[in-house]
């Protein structure tokens, strides 16, 4: 099974997300990750969905999504033709002895330290799935108290855009 990324422009109105997510459950498709937010046009939201499956399944997902009234436009993004990022917040166990070491690791990953306490350090990492995984692997040894991770969000590379026809 491969991972596919769908970029979906929807009306920014109540209940849209539940229609989209409900469709996945109902038709037996699995959502790998999901992120939602308004676009520059506040009447439109963008939903980025990662799904795992074969090419036929993704085509079917895309066609079924297109049938929803609130779905304005949809595109399956190609791995090589998009930039894709996710974000994770990690709260790592720390003590005065290893705090510096953790900050060094964070620097290598260009992670931001966004909170400190005597016993914890919270880092923010943005990047691809692999980068986030690699960072989590690196800090696992110190002890991870908690993580909060977003779904991936993506845009096409270059001048290509997902435009709404006027």
């Amino acid at each position, binding site marked *: 099974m491969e991972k596919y990324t769908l970029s979906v422009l929807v009306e920014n109105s109540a209940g849209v997300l539940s229609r989209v997510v409900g469709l996945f459950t109902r038709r037996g498709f699995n959502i790998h990750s999901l992120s939602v937010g308004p676009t520059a046009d506040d009447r439109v939201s963008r939903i980025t969905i990662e799904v795992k499956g074969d090419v036929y399944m993704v*085509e079917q997902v895309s066609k079924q999504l297109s049938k929803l*009234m609130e779905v304005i436009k949809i595109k399956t993004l190609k791995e090589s033709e998009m930039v894709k990022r996710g974000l994770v917040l990690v709260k790592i166990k720390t003590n005065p002895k290893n705090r510096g070491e953790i900050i060094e690791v964070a620097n290598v990953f260009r992670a931001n330290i966004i909170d400190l306490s005597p016993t914890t350090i919270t880092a923010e990492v943005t990047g691809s799935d692999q980068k986030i995984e690699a960072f989590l692997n690196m800090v696992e040894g110190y002890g991870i108290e908690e993580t909060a991770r977003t779904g991936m969000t993506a845009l096409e590379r270059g001048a290509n855009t997902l435009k709404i026809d006027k």
Partner: protein
Amino acid sequence: MNGADLAVKALEANGVKVVFGYPGAANAPFIDSVSHSSIEYVLSRNEQGAAHMASGYGRVNRVAGVCTATSGPGATNLITAIATAYMDSIPMVAITGQVKRELIGKDAFQEVDITGATLPFTKHSYLVNDVKDITRVVNEAFHIATTGRPGPVLIDFPMDVLKAPYEEDGEENEINLRGYKLLGKANETQIKKVAQALKKAKKPVILAGGGIALANAQEIIRDFVKDTEIPVIATMMGLGVLPTDDKKFYGMIGSHGTKCANMMLNRSDLVIAMGTRLGDRSVANAEGLEKSKKLVHIDIDPAEIGKNMQPYIPVVGDIKDVAVQLKSALGDYKANAEWCDEVDKLRKDTAPEISKEDNGFVNPRYFLERLSELTKSEAYITTEVGQNQLWTANHYTIKEPNRFLTSGGFGTMGYGLPAAIGASRAQSELPVIAVMGDGSFQMDLPELGTMQQYDIPVKMVLFKNDRLGMVHEHQYLFYGSNYQMVDITGGPDFAKLVDAYGIRSGRVSENSKVDDAIKEMMDGRESYLLIVDVSPYEPTGNALNESRMKEA
């Protein structure tokens, strides 16, 4: 004016003449407003009945039928009928009352999230939160329900929105659906591919689905078949696209279709499927059809293409347009005459023998053939679900697709009688016949009251075998004749029952008396119940198993 008045005004503007429904506190403002309008209403005995009536009405008049129910249990009672309409792509607008806005989400009395509950089987739904949106929402609902691939749309109105005073002042109520794309003509490249494939094919067959009737394209397809001479088989929803006694029609496919049609599906080298989902009951061996690389799938809904099987050539478009495009690409093409002879012979060789000797039971196949003959099929006919449905589908001559109303996709018992009431309310030109089993009739019984109250006549045929026949047969075939939960001998005396409603009835248990019984039933316009005694061991009869059931 208030919200309810706006909604009713918008219904009138969308051509609504009748609303089927059941009242309650939450839709009371709507009912009140209907009473001051040109729209008439029909009170059902259960909300489910009202929605099936709206479905039957809509199919006959080629409009979106309208039903209404109150919040909570009223709304949930609609659910089965909405799902029934959805599965057969029947246009419908369901209007529900909802608790007032400030109570939504508080588990108020008779509150249910009906838009949430119906999400999987409505084409679209609305919870109207602002009185200003009402006119636009109603307009959109009718547009969505009746265009493209049709389907049911639900509008949920909180009671306080219906009661909110509002005067329209030149608002923009134009529909605003930028995410809704309607398709017409198909891509010419695909049409050319189909034409080429057809010219090469030695054994082409058209598989007609219900989409043709929904598009009202049966005349176009009839002309197409006349010109090309391609033999036609059909799914249950596609019956009547060609009159079922037409010389180019070879029967229904599927697990209970005819032997001939199923064999043709297997033998053919090019299947032109038009407006069908290719559902599991129609095509059991999806993989086989996919692998044989002979499937051309034409549908208005792109998501149907490749859903159940990958076609060899996909064509997305409105069948009305596609048939015309295809005809022009084909020129004076005619289907291979050898193949036509082969299937003619096949049809002759596989024609079932219909016995009509007297043995205390009526042969339902013989009955339905006589019913077609004596009425000349000049009637609307509805069925319930089970043996009665399949006997009718295979043995009653269906001349027009929209005159045969059945729950094909969802298989809903309790559909036939209310759908017949809807069909009868929709027109008075032709009689309406409801074919039922004694199981499904008992899911409908209360609607006899609706029929009588509003003088909506239905000719009822009740195949009585004291069994849930289809399951009974299933238990014979697959559960070693362990007949459980299929015996329904508890009564009632159906003649006395309909008499209680003032409906006349008759009974027939010999084939030789069938003609007289049918003539008696069809005499006059009023409702009538004909009880037809059928053996509990009468097989459904199908391509897969022709064996007669053994007595337990």
